[in-house]
Protein backbone atom coordinates (compact mmCIF):
# COMPACT_ATOMS: atom_id res chain seq x y z
CA UNK A 1 0.00 0.00 0.00
CA UNK A 2 3.07 2.21 -0.45
CA UNK A 3 1.61 4.26 -3.23
CA UNK A 4 -1.76 4.80 -1.68
CA UNK A 5 -2.78 7.52 0.67
CA UNK A 6 -5.64 5.52 2.03
CA UNK A 7 -4.85 2.13 3.22
CA UNK A 8 -8.20 0.44 3.27
CA UNK A 9 -7.80 -2.71 5.19
CA UNK A 10 -10.98 -4.62 4.69
CA UNK A 11 -10.96 -7.58 6.93
CA UNK A 12 -14.05 -9.69 6.68
CA UNK A 13 -14.85 -11.63 9.81
CA UNK A 14 -18.34 -13.09 9.78
CA UNK A 15 -19.52 -10.42 7.30
CA UNK A 16 -18.15 -7.54 9.42
CA UNK A 17 -15.85 -4.92 7.93
CA UNK A 18 -12.98 -3.16 9.63
CA UNK A 19 -11.68 0.00 7.95
CA UNK A 20 -8.24 1.37 8.65
CA UNK A 21 -7.32 4.78 7.23
CA UNK A 22 -4.09 6.67 7.89
CA UNK A 23 -2.41 9.86 6.70
CA UNK A 24 0.82 9.73 4.69
CA UNK A 25 3.85 11.95 4.82
CA UNK A 26 4.61 11.77 1.11
CA UNK A 27 1.63 11.73 -1.16
CA UNK A 28 2.06 9.61 -4.23
CA UNK A 29 1.44 11.36 -7.55
CA UNK A 30 0.79 8.08 -9.31
CA UNK A 31 -2.73 6.88 -9.89
CA UNK A 32 -3.47 3.32 -10.92
CA UNK A 33 -5.67 2.16 -13.81
CA UNK A 34 -8.14 0.65 -11.33
CA UNK A 35 -8.43 3.92 -9.46
CA UNK A 36 -9.16 5.75 -12.73
CA UNK A 37 -11.77 3.16 -13.69
CA UNK A 38 -13.24 3.30 -10.21
CA UNK A 39 -13.84 7.05 -10.19
CA UNK A 40 -15.09 7.02 -13.80
CA UNK A 41 -17.63 4.30 -12.98
CA UNK A 42 -18.66 6.07 -9.79
CA UNK A 43 -19.44 9.31 -11.66
CA UNK A 44 -21.21 7.48 -14.44
CA UNK A 45 -23.43 5.49 -12.08
CA UNK A 46 -24.30 8.54 -10.03
CA UNK A 47 -24.61 11.32 -12.62
CA UNK A 48 -24.51 9.51 -16.01
CA UNK A 49 -21.42 11.53 -16.74
CA UNK A 50 -18.53 10.11 -18.77
CA UNK A 51 -15.38 11.49 -17.15
CA UNK A 52 -12.27 11.63 -19.32
CA UNK A 53 -9.11 9.82 -18.23
CA UNK A 54 -7.33 13.14 -17.84
CA UNK A 55 -10.15 14.51 -15.73
CA UNK A 56 -10.23 11.37 -13.60
CA UNK A 57 -6.47 11.54 -12.95
CA UNK A 58 -6.68 15.22 -12.03
CA UNK A 59 -9.60 14.66 -9.66
CA UNK A 60 -7.93 11.67 -8.01
CA UNK A 61 -4.76 13.65 -7.31
CA UNK A 62 -6.68 16.67 -6.02
CA UNK A 63 -8.84 14.52 -3.74
CA UNK A 64 -5.76 12.70 -2.48
CA UNK A 65 -4.02 15.92 -1.52
CA UNK A 66 -7.11 17.46 0.08
CA UNK A 67 -8.03 14.30 1.99
CA UNK A 68 -4.51 14.00 3.34
CA UNK A 69 -4.57 17.61 4.51
CA UNK A 70 -7.87 16.94 6.25
CA UNK A 71 -6.40 13.92 8.04
CA UNK A 72 -3.36 15.91 9.14
CA UNK A 73 -5.47 18.75 10.46
CA UNK A 74 -8.48 17.02 12.00
CA UNK A 75 -7.78 13.29 12.04
CA UNK A 76 -10.49 10.74 11.50
CA UNK A 77 -13.48 10.92 13.84
CA UNK A 78 -15.34 7.79 14.78
CA UNK A 79 -18.33 9.20 12.84
CA UNK A 80 -16.17 9.45 9.66
CA UNK A 81 -14.85 5.98 10.20
CA UNK A 82 -18.32 4.52 10.65
CA UNK A 83 -19.66 6.41 7.70
CA UNK A 84 -16.90 5.07 5.44
CA UNK A 85 -17.62 1.62 6.83
CA UNK A 86 -21.36 1.73 6.13
CA UNK A 87 -20.82 3.13 2.63
CA UNK A 88 -18.40 0.29 1.91
CA UNK A 89 -20.88 -2.23 3.28
CA UNK A 90 -23.64 -0.75 1.13
CA UNK A 91 -21.42 -0.90 -1.95
CA UNK A 92 -20.52 -4.55 -1.33
CA UNK A 93 -24.09 -5.54 -0.45
CA UNK A 94 -25.51 -3.95 -3.61
CA UNK A 95 -22.79 -5.47 -5.73
CA UNK A 96 -23.59 -8.87 -4.26
CA UNK A 97 -27.31 -8.50 -5.10
CA UNK A 98 -26.53 -7.27 -8.61
CA UNK A 99 -24.23 -10.19 -9.28
CA UNK A 100 -26.92 -12.67 -8.27
CA UNK A 101 -29.54 -10.72 -10.22
CA UNK A 102 -27.40 -10.64 -13.37
CA UNK A 103 -27.24 -14.42 -13.44
CA UNK A 104 -31.01 -14.55 -13.99
CA UNK A 105 -31.84 -13.86 -17.63
CA UNK A 106 -34.99 -11.98 -18.49
CA UNK A 107 -37.07 -13.66 -21.14
CA UNK A 108 -37.71 -12.21 -24.60
CA UNK A 109 -41.36 -11.34 -23.99
CA UNK A 110 -40.52 -9.29 -20.92
CA UNK A 111 -37.92 -7.23 -22.75
CA UNK A 112 -39.90 -6.95 -25.99
CA UNK A 113 -43.06 -5.83 -24.18
CA UNK A 114 -41.10 -3.04 -22.48
CA UNK A 115 -39.62 -1.99 -25.82
CA UNK A 116 -43.02 -1.86 -27.56
CA UNK A 117 -44.62 0.02 -24.68
CA UNK A 118 -41.83 2.61 -24.58
CA UNK A 119 -41.05 2.77 -28.29
CA UNK A 120 -41.08 6.56 -28.43
CA UNK A 121 -38.13 6.62 -26.06
CA UNK A 122 -36.14 4.68 -28.67
CA UNK A 123 -36.49 7.05 -31.61
CA UNK A 124 -33.33 7.48 -33.68
CA UNK A 125 -32.24 11.11 -33.56
CA UNK A 126 -32.75 13.00 -36.82
CA UNK A 127 -29.34 13.92 -38.15
CA UNK A 128 -27.76 16.44 -40.49
CA UNK A 129 -24.45 16.71 -42.38
CA UNK A 130 -23.27 20.27 -42.82
CA UNK A 131 -20.19 22.37 -43.54
CA UNK A 132 -19.36 25.63 -41.79
CA UNK A 133 -17.23 28.25 -43.58
CA UNK A 134 -15.77 30.57 -40.97
CA UNK A 135 -14.49 33.97 -42.17
CA UNK A 136 -12.49 36.63 -40.37
CA UNK A 137 -15.31 39.19 -40.48
CA UNK A 138 -19.13 39.10 -40.84
CA UNK A 139 -18.76 41.30 -43.95
CA UNK A 140 -16.61 38.68 -45.71
CA UNK A 141 -19.10 35.99 -44.72
CA UNK A 142 -21.94 38.06 -46.21
CA UNK A 143 -19.97 38.65 -49.45
CA UNK A 144 -19.31 34.90 -49.75
CA UNK A 145 -22.99 34.14 -49.19
CA UNK A 146 -24.25 36.74 -51.69
CA UNK A 147 -21.93 35.56 -54.46
CA UNK A 148 -22.34 31.79 -53.98
CA UNK A 149 -25.98 31.17 -53.13
CA UNK A 150 -26.38 28.56 -55.86
CA UNK A 151 -22.84 27.20 -56.07
CA UNK A 152 -22.08 23.50 -55.73
CA UNK A 153 -20.29 22.12 -52.68
CA UNK A 154 -17.01 21.43 -54.46
CA UNK A 155 -16.81 24.95 -55.83
CA UNK A 156 -17.75 26.45 -52.48
CA UNK A 157 -14.84 24.72 -50.79
CA UNK A 158 -12.48 25.95 -53.50
CA UNK A 159 -13.70 29.55 -53.23
CA UNK A 160 -13.66 29.45 -49.42
CA UNK A 161 -10.06 28.25 -49.45
CA UNK A 162 -9.12 31.10 -51.78
CA UNK A 163 -10.74 33.51 -49.30
CA UNK A 164 -8.75 31.97 -46.41
CA UNK A 165 -11.87 30.73 -44.64
CA UNK A 166 -11.71 27.93 -42.08
CA UNK A 167 -13.72 24.95 -43.30
CA UNK A 168 -15.31 22.64 -40.72
CA UNK A 169 -17.26 19.55 -41.72
CA UNK A 170 -19.86 18.02 -39.42
CA UNK A 171 -21.32 14.58 -40.05
CA UNK A 172 -24.43 12.92 -38.58
CA UNK A 173 -25.09 15.65 -36.04
CA UNK A 174 -28.30 15.24 -34.05
CA UNK A 175 -30.67 18.05 -35.13
CA UNK A 176 -32.08 18.26 -31.60
CA UNK A 177 -28.65 19.06 -30.20
CA UNK A 178 -27.84 21.89 -32.63
CA UNK A 179 -27.82 25.50 -31.48
CA UNK A 180 -31.25 27.12 -31.86
CA UNK A 181 -30.46 29.28 -34.93
CA UNK A 182 -28.78 26.42 -36.78
CA UNK A 183 -31.62 24.05 -35.90
CA UNK A 184 -34.06 26.61 -37.29
CA UNK A 185 -32.16 26.73 -40.62
CA UNK A 186 -31.95 22.94 -40.90
CA UNK A 187 -35.66 22.55 -40.18
CA UNK A 188 -36.74 25.31 -42.54
CA UNK A 189 -34.46 24.99 -45.60
CA UNK A 190 -33.71 22.26 -48.11
CA UNK A 191 -30.36 20.54 -48.23
CA UNK A 192 -27.84 21.26 -51.00
CA UNK A 193 -27.83 25.03 -50.53
CA UNK A 194 -26.64 27.92 -48.43
CA UNK A 195 -29.49 29.04 -46.17
CA UNK A 196 -29.65 32.79 -45.43
CA UNK A 197 -27.51 34.24 -42.67
CA UNK A 198 -29.28 35.07 -39.44
CA UNK A 199 -27.93 38.26 -37.90
CA UNK A 200 -24.34 39.43 -38.20
CA UNK A 201 -22.24 36.31 -38.27
CA UNK A 202 -18.82 35.47 -39.61
CA UNK A 203 -19.76 31.92 -40.58
CA UNK A 204 -21.82 30.52 -43.45
CA UNK A 205 -23.48 27.11 -43.28
CA UNK A 206 -23.97 24.69 -46.15
CA UNK A 207 -26.51 21.93 -45.49
CA UNK A 208 -25.21 18.82 -47.25
CA UNK A 209 -27.94 16.36 -46.36
CA UNK A 210 -30.25 15.39 -43.53
CA UNK A 211 -32.25 12.46 -42.29
CA UNK A 212 -35.61 13.55 -40.89
CA UNK A 213 -37.52 10.27 -41.06
CA UNK A 214 -39.09 8.87 -37.91
CA UNK A 215 -36.93 5.82 -37.24
CA UNK A 216 -36.79 3.66 -34.18
CA UNK A 217 -33.72 1.95 -32.80
CA UNK A 218 -34.06 -1.77 -33.40
CA UNK A 219 -35.02 -4.10 -30.56
CA UNK A 220 -31.61 -5.77 -30.65
CA UNK A 221 -29.87 -2.41 -30.35
CA UNK A 222 -31.64 -1.55 -27.09
CA UNK A 223 -32.15 -5.01 -25.67
CA UNK A 224 -29.28 -4.81 -23.14
CA UNK A 225 -30.25 -1.30 -22.11
CA UNK A 226 -33.82 -2.44 -21.39
CA UNK A 227 -32.59 -5.47 -19.48
CA UNK A 228 -30.57 -3.11 -17.29
CA UNK A 229 -33.55 -0.77 -16.73
CA UNK A 230 -35.83 -3.64 -15.72
CA UNK A 231 -33.25 -5.13 -13.39
CA UNK A 232 -32.64 -1.76 -11.76
CA UNK A 233 -36.37 -1.29 -11.23
CA UNK A 234 -36.63 -4.74 -9.71
CA UNK A 235 -33.48 -4.31 -7.61
CA UNK A 236 -35.15 -3.58 -4.26
CA UNK A 237 -37.49 -6.58 -4.57
CA UNK A 238 -34.55 -8.78 -5.47
CA UNK A 239 -32.57 -7.45 -2.54
CA UNK A 240 -35.39 -8.36 -0.16
CA UNK A 241 -35.61 -11.83 -1.63
CA UNK A 242 -31.86 -12.40 -1.28
CA UNK A 243 -31.78 -10.92 2.24
CA UNK A 244 -34.47 -13.42 3.31
CA UNK A 245 -32.45 -16.28 1.87
CA UNK A 246 -29.26 -15.01 3.52
CA UNK A 247 -30.93 -14.59 6.89
CA UNK A 248 -32.29 -18.13 6.69
CA UNK A 249 -28.83 -19.54 6.05
CA UNK A 250 -27.49 -17.68 9.11
CA UNK A 251 -30.35 -19.02 11.24
CA UNK A 252 -29.59 -22.53 10.00
CA UNK A 253 -25.88 -22.15 10.82
CA UNK A 254 -26.69 -21.13 14.36
Amino acid at each position, binding site marked *: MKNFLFAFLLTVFSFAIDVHIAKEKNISQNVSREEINGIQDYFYELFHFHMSERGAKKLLKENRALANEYLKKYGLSSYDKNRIKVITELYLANKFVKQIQNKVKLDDDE*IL*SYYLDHKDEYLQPNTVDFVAFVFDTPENAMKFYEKNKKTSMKKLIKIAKQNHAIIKEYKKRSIKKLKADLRYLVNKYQHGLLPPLIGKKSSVIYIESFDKKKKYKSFNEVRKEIEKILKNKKFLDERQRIVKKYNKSIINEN
Partner: protein
Amino acid sequence: MKINSIIIYIITIILFLGCSAKNKHLKSKHLKITDVYVKQYIFKNDNLQQKLIQRFKEYWHYRQKGDYNKSYMFELPYQRYLMPFPKYKALAAGSYVGKKTVLEKINLDKKNSQAILQRKVYFNNLYRIKKDKWLYINGQWYHKFYQSILPPKTEEEAEFQ
Protein backbone atom coordinates in the same frame (compact mmCIF):
# COMPACT_ATOMS: atom_id res chain seq x y z
CA MET B 1 -63.36 -63.28 -30.95
CA LYS B 2 -61.55 -62.23 -27.81
CA ILE B 3 -58.89 -60.32 -29.73
CA ASN B 4 -61.57 -58.51 -31.72
CA SER B 5 -63.36 -57.37 -28.59
CA ILE B 6 -60.05 -56.15 -27.09
CA ILE B 7 -59.32 -54.13 -30.27
CA ILE B 8 -62.84 -52.61 -30.23
CA TYR B 9 -62.39 -51.79 -26.56
CA ILE B 10 -59.05 -50.03 -27.19
CA ILE B 11 -60.47 -48.05 -30.15
CA THR B 12 -63.45 -46.96 -28.04
CA ILE B 13 -61.12 -45.80 -25.24
CA ILE B 14 -58.97 -43.83 -27.74
CA LEU B 15 -62.03 -42.18 -29.28
CA PHE B 16 -63.37 -41.35 -25.87
CA LEU B 17 -60.09 -39.77 -24.74
CA GLY B 18 -59.84 -37.80 -28.00
CA CYS B 19 -63.35 -36.40 -27.55
CA SER B 20 -62.76 -35.43 -23.95
CA ALA B 21 -59.50 -33.67 -24.89
CA LYS B 22 -61.29 -31.82 -27.67
CA ASN B 23 -64.11 -30.80 -25.33
CA LYS B 24 -61.61 -29.56 -22.77
CA HIS B 25 -59.92 -27.46 -25.43
CA LEU B 26 -63.26 -26.04 -26.59
CA LYS B 27 -64.27 -25.32 -23.06
CA SER B 28 -61.21 -23.13 -22.43
CA LYS B 29 -61.45 -21.47 -25.83
CA HIS B 30 -65.16 -20.79 -25.66
CA LEU B 31 -65.45 -19.54 -22.14
CA LYS B 32 -69.02 -18.61 -21.29
CA ILE B 33 -68.86 -14.85 -20.94
CA THR B 34 -72.06 -13.06 -20.02
CA ASP B 35 -70.75 -9.79 -18.68
CA VAL B 36 -68.58 -8.50 -21.57
CA TYR B 37 -70.11 -7.51 -24.90
CA VAL B 38 -68.87 -6.21 -28.24
CA LYS B 39 -70.76 -3.62 -30.28
CA GLN B 40 -72.23 -5.05 -33.46
CA TYR B 41 -70.53 -2.58 -35.79
CA ILE B 42 -66.99 -3.56 -34.74
CA PHE B 43 -65.27 -5.28 -37.65
CA LYS B 44 -64.41 -8.81 -36.62
CA ASN B 45 -63.10 -10.41 -39.81
CA ASP B 46 -59.52 -9.38 -39.23
CA ASN B 47 -57.71 -12.26 -37.54
CA LEU B 48 -55.61 -9.99 -35.34
CA GLN B 49 -58.65 -8.03 -34.25
CA GLN B 50 -60.60 -11.20 -33.62
CA LYS B 51 -57.85 -12.45 -31.33
CA LEU B 52 -57.82 -9.10 -29.56
CA ILE B 53 -61.59 -9.13 -29.00
CA GLN B 54 -61.39 -12.63 -27.53
CA ARG B 55 -58.58 -11.62 -25.17
CA PHE B 56 -60.44 -8.43 -24.21
CA LYS B 57 -63.59 -10.37 -23.36
CA GLU B 58 -61.75 -12.96 -21.29
CA TYR B 59 -59.67 -10.36 -19.48
CA TRP B 60 -62.56 -8.14 -18.41
CA HIS B 61 -64.64 -11.18 -17.52
CA TYR B 62 -61.93 -12.28 -15.07
CA ARG B 63 -61.42 -8.77 -13.74
CA GLN B 64 -65.15 -8.27 -13.13
CA LYS B 65 -65.41 -11.66 -11.50
CA GLY B 66 -62.46 -10.80 -9.28
CA ASP B 67 -60.42 -13.70 -10.63
CA TYR B 68 -57.12 -11.82 -10.46
CA ASN B 69 -55.00 -14.94 -10.73
CA LYS B 70 -56.26 -15.33 -14.29
CA SER B 71 -56.36 -11.65 -15.29
CA TYR B 72 -52.76 -11.27 -14.06
CA MET B 73 -51.62 -13.56 -16.86
CA PHE B 74 -53.06 -11.11 -19.44
CA GLU B 75 -50.91 -8.20 -18.24
CA LEU B 76 -47.77 -7.17 -20.12
CA PRO B 77 -44.89 -9.55 -19.37
CA TYR B 78 -42.57 -6.77 -18.19
CA GLN B 79 -45.30 -5.48 -15.84
CA ARG B 80 -45.65 -8.95 -14.36
CA TYR B 81 -41.87 -9.09 -13.94
CA LEU B 82 -41.89 -5.80 -12.04
CA MET B 83 -45.14 -6.27 -10.13
CA PRO B 84 -45.58 -9.37 -7.98
CA PHE B 85 -49.08 -10.81 -7.88
CA PRO B 86 -50.03 -9.61 -4.34
CA LYS B 87 -49.23 -6.02 -5.34
CA TYR B 88 -51.20 -6.43 -8.56
CA LYS B 89 -54.18 -7.76 -6.71
CA ALA B 90 -54.09 -4.88 -4.26
CA LEU B 91 -53.93 -2.31 -7.04
CA ALA B 92 -56.47 -3.97 -9.33
CA ALA B 93 -59.28 -4.48 -6.85
CA GLY B 94 -60.65 -0.94 -6.61
CA SER B 95 -64.09 0.21 -5.61
CA TYR B 96 -65.01 0.84 -9.26
CA VAL B 97 -65.21 -2.75 -10.39
CA GLY B 98 -67.80 -2.76 -13.14
CA LYS B 99 -70.62 -5.22 -13.55
CA LYS B 100 -70.79 -5.14 -17.33
CA THR B 101 -68.35 -3.99 -20.03
CA VAL B 102 -69.13 -3.16 -23.64
CA LEU B 103 -66.36 -2.83 -26.20
CA GLU B 104 -67.24 0.21 -28.30
CA LYS B 105 -64.26 1.03 -30.48
CA ILE B 106 -60.90 -0.39 -31.57
CA ASN B 107 -58.00 1.63 -32.94
CA LEU B 108 -55.58 -0.92 -34.27
CA ASP B 109 -52.03 0.27 -34.96
CA LYS B 110 -50.47 -2.76 -36.63
CA LYS B 111 -47.20 -0.94 -37.35
CA ASN B 112 -46.51 -0.43 -33.66
CA SER B 113 -48.16 -3.70 -32.58
CA GLN B 114 -50.64 -1.96 -30.35
CA ALA B 115 -54.34 -1.18 -30.03
CA ILE B 116 -56.31 1.39 -28.09
CA LEU B 117 -59.77 0.21 -27.14
CA GLN B 118 -62.70 2.18 -25.89
CA ARG B 119 -65.08 0.47 -23.50
CA LYS B 120 -68.21 1.36 -21.59
CA VAL B 121 -68.24 0.12 -18.02
CA TYR B 122 -71.57 -0.20 -16.21
CA PHE B 123 -71.89 0.17 -12.45
CA ASN B 124 -75.56 -0.62 -11.83
CA ASN B 125 -77.41 2.12 -13.78
CA LEU B 126 -74.41 4.37 -14.23
CA TYR B 127 -71.66 3.94 -16.78
CA ARG B 128 -68.22 5.31 -17.55
CA ILE B 129 -66.25 5.47 -20.78
CA LYS B 130 -62.75 4.07 -20.33
CA LYS B 131 -59.74 3.32 -22.48
CA ASP B 132 -57.54 0.24 -22.72
CA LYS B 133 -54.10 -0.25 -24.20
CA TRP B 134 -53.16 -3.65 -25.62
CA LEU B 135 -49.85 -4.76 -27.14
CA TYR B 136 -49.23 -7.66 -29.52
CA ILE B 137 -46.16 -9.61 -28.41
CA ASN B 138 -44.90 -12.77 -30.09
CA GLY B 139 -48.35 -13.84 -31.34
CA GLN B 140 -50.38 -12.85 -28.28
CA TRP B 141 -52.27 -9.74 -27.13
CA TYR B 142 -51.43 -8.39 -23.67
CA HIS B 143 -53.21 -5.74 -21.63
CA LYS B 144 -51.36 -2.79 -20.15
CA PHE B 145 -52.26 -2.48 -16.51
CA TYR B 146 -52.91 0.93 -14.97
CA GLN B 147 -53.55 0.98 -11.27
CA SER B 148 -56.72 2.83 -10.25
CA ILE B 149 -56.23 3.14 -6.50
CA LEU B 150 -53.57 5.85 -6.26
CA PRO B 151 -53.62 9.21 -8.08
CA PRO B 152 -52.03 9.04 -11.56
CA LYS B 153 -48.29 9.65 -11.78
CA THR B 154 -48.08 10.19 -15.53
CA GLU B 155 -50.25 11.73 -18.25
CA GLU B 156 -50.73 8.29 -19.76
CA GLU B 157 -51.88 6.86 -16.47
CA ALA B 158 -54.38 9.69 -16.11
CA GLU B 159 -55.73 8.94 -19.58
CA PHE B 160 -56.17 5.21 -19.07
CA GLN B 161 -56.95 4.94 -15.36
